[in-house]
């Protein structure tokens, strides 16, 4: 187990480093940073002045290694656009995104658990097909579209919830639903499959023979085992939620990391984009690593492969 763990950690670190380097290169390739900073209509002299002021004319490799060196010491630099410390900026926005991701995950589980269980208990029936349809709809609908529909029905139409902003918990309801619905389908399918498998196993037959009630069998005995792979999936889906937050936060004007990523990309604010991409990739890699380790711990066969 230890050898496996170390190997996985090593690979994870390499992936994270590769992501940061690729992001660095891609950002520079997407446009001239000095022009973006100078803004629309700036003269060539203004652009040059900015290029000099921010030392953007140095060789790429030099800029990258300087960035790595500073990052390892915890200095993520200063935002070119906001002119504030990047780490402080990220730390300020992180809680909003963390809450959004958490609430979305909770919502996703809240709808996928009942759907998955019901679908598993009546496989290939009309109910199963309906649950499947709902799941597929969640994956097929673009989440920004669904978000707008939610706004239009619940905020504008029925005035039940606010349209945008991040003042209170009410502002997180619609965004969590929009984002949660997007990641629910894989959970539903996994729970359904897991439950079907488990319900056909010997110990469940024993439980039935013992005379235990249906509810007790499903919830206490079967679900517990079916949920094991779901925990691992949750870790991975959390990463997906962080990515999906870019669009959702922009639509709902939630001032989180996703929106910061969107703004910094539009402004070619390199230090911030770099920091956000690096941070999110570390989190995502960390989560998938955790999922791998959990699975390996539960199923020793994985450790050998």
């Amino acid at each position, binding site marked *: 187990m230890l050898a496996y763990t170390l190997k996985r950690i090593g690979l994870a670190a390499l992936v994270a480093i590769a992501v940061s380097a690729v992001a660095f290169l891609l950002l520079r390739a*997407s*446009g*001239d*940073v000095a*022009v*973006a*900073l*100078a*803004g*629309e*209509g*700036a*003269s*060539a*002299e*203004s*652009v040059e*002045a*900015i290029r000099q*002021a921010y030392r953007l004319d140095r060789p790429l490799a030099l800029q990258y290694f300087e960035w790595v060196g500073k990052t390892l010491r915890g200095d993520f630099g200063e*935002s070119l*656009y*906001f*002119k*504030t410390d990047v780490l402080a900026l990220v730390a300020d926005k992180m809680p909003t995104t963390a809450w959004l991701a958490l609430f979305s995950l909770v919502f996703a589980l809240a709808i996928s658990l009942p759907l998955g269980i019901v679908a598993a208990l009546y496989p290939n029936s009309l109910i199963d097909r309906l649950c499947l349809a709902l799941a597929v709809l969640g994956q097929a609908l673009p989440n*920004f*579209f669904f978000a*707008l*529909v939610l*706004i*239009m*029905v619940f*905020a*504008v*139409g*029925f*005035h039940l919830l*606010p*349209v*945008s*902003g*991040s003042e209170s918990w009410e502002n997180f309801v619609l965004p969590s639903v929009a984002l949660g619905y997007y990641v629910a389908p894989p959970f539903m399918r996994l729970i359904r499959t897991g439950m079907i498998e488990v319900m056909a196993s010997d110990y469940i037959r024993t439980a039935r023979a013992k005379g235990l009630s249906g509810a007790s069998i499903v919830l206490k005995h079967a679900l517990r085992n079916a949920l094991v792979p779901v925990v691992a999936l949750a870790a991975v889906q959390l990463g997906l939620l962080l990515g999906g937050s870019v*669009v959702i936060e*922009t*639509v*709902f*004007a939630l*001032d989180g990391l996703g*929106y*910061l990523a*969107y*703004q910094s990309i*539009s402004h*070619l604010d390199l230090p911030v984009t770099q920091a956000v991409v690096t941070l999110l990739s570390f989190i995502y890699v960390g989560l998938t690593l955790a999922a791998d380790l959990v699975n390996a711990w539960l199923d020793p066969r994985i450790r050998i492969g």
Partner: protein
Amino acid sequence: MIIAGVGKLAALFAAIIIFFASALATPAAAGKRDNSVRFAEEQAVDNLDPYFNNVRIGVILAHHIWDTLIYRDPNAGEYKGELATSWKWIDDRTLELELRQGVKFHNGAEFDADDVVYTFNFVSKPESKAITTQLVDWIDRVEKLDRYKVRIHTKHSFPAALEYLAATLVIHPHEYYAKVGPKGMSEKPIGTGPYRVVEHALGKYIRLVRNPDYFTGGPKAQPTIDKVEVRFIPDRQTQLAEVLSGGADFIKNVPVDQARQARAAPHLQVISAEIMRYAFMQFDTLDNTPAPMLRDVRVRQAVMHAIDRDAMVKSIVGEGSRVLHVPCFPTQFGCIDEGAPHFAYDPAKAKRLLADAGFPDGFAVDLYAYRDRDQVEAMIGYLRAVGIRANLRFLQYAAFDTAVRGGKAPIAVWTWGSFSINDVSAGVSNFHKGQADDVNRDGEVRKLLERGDAALDPEVRKSAYAKALALITERAYVLPLYSIPVYYVATKDLVFNAYADEIPRFWEMSWK
């Protein structure tokens, strides 16, 4: 980006929920109830100091939190004294101004010549890293004559100085600014303007309150609206949803099709106003142009005849826009149409011109653009009808401008706002005086523009500009397209005016 594709669908939904919203409930009239206006804006401002940002909301707030020396009346078009009371040119490089007395900054400090001297000398220094250097780099230095008199020395003869002083060249309190610098000024802005900042949550919102001690006798009215809240909502559909549900009172730059739908809502008003921004198509005719066929004037003239600008203005650009025949905005000083040829929509003539130039079957060419994709696609449709197969390269502004300056964009569709400066020197001169964005480099045009930019005599300027514009159009370097309108959607009871400089004036607004 994501918004563009969903525009049409959103318009349909807007129609549906407008029905919802009006049928089910009347929205909360919070803005009217507490005499405030809630304004939703797309792009957040990074630094509130007007010399250190270049976003639209920065320009708007500059006029609310601070004052400039001179104010240009948007209705009469004349210059009025704001922080200055009178001015005269001593020689062709020295402007002397008398300053207004009895004006106080929001922190109680008194306004006088020291503030003008410090502000201008600071921002015009390259080390200060002011963002839009073009707005201040004409200033050589400012000299104090006495407590309420200053002299501005320009680097070269600069007749447009008054126009620039009336733009966003605001005056900062010298002691405070020297102490806190641009960063401190952004965090806690202090100016002389009709509104004060009470709260600034970076990237989220800015809250302003009325300045009860705003000086009287100036060109800006005493404000009646007590509070203004500017909220940053990046998605245009969300902005519209906020106005529909009563969460916001005022939004602008609403896409045409959605604005038209919003007209159906009984509690909203929709106003469209032409702004100074205009669109034009630029052709790269230099030696290293990626499309050598564009060096033949007949090919360029063919493009000029191929696009039906009247039809575009009528159907997709929006109400208030008009076709332009020279690449400048009609109210700009020096924007003279007479003498410039008009290119009528004539696809048959376009095809003939192409055949004469040796392209009877047309040709393929890259076309670069960075906004208003639907309009650009309409233009491409017209070009295709005469055989020119334009391949659209739709980029972010920074990538677009890099391509143009790098000689990679044979045809580029630009829009230009001239920084809301009503003088041709801030407009067409930017593209034909040999700078990075000049992809024609015509020496004759350049000389004429230089004369127009430098002469102090208005008649000399006008004649030089008229000749330059006529040449640019005759030689088909640029296809002037149309002026761009902006749609405002607001709560019905809000009384406001829409101006060509795109600056909503909250100090003039009121609730019915």
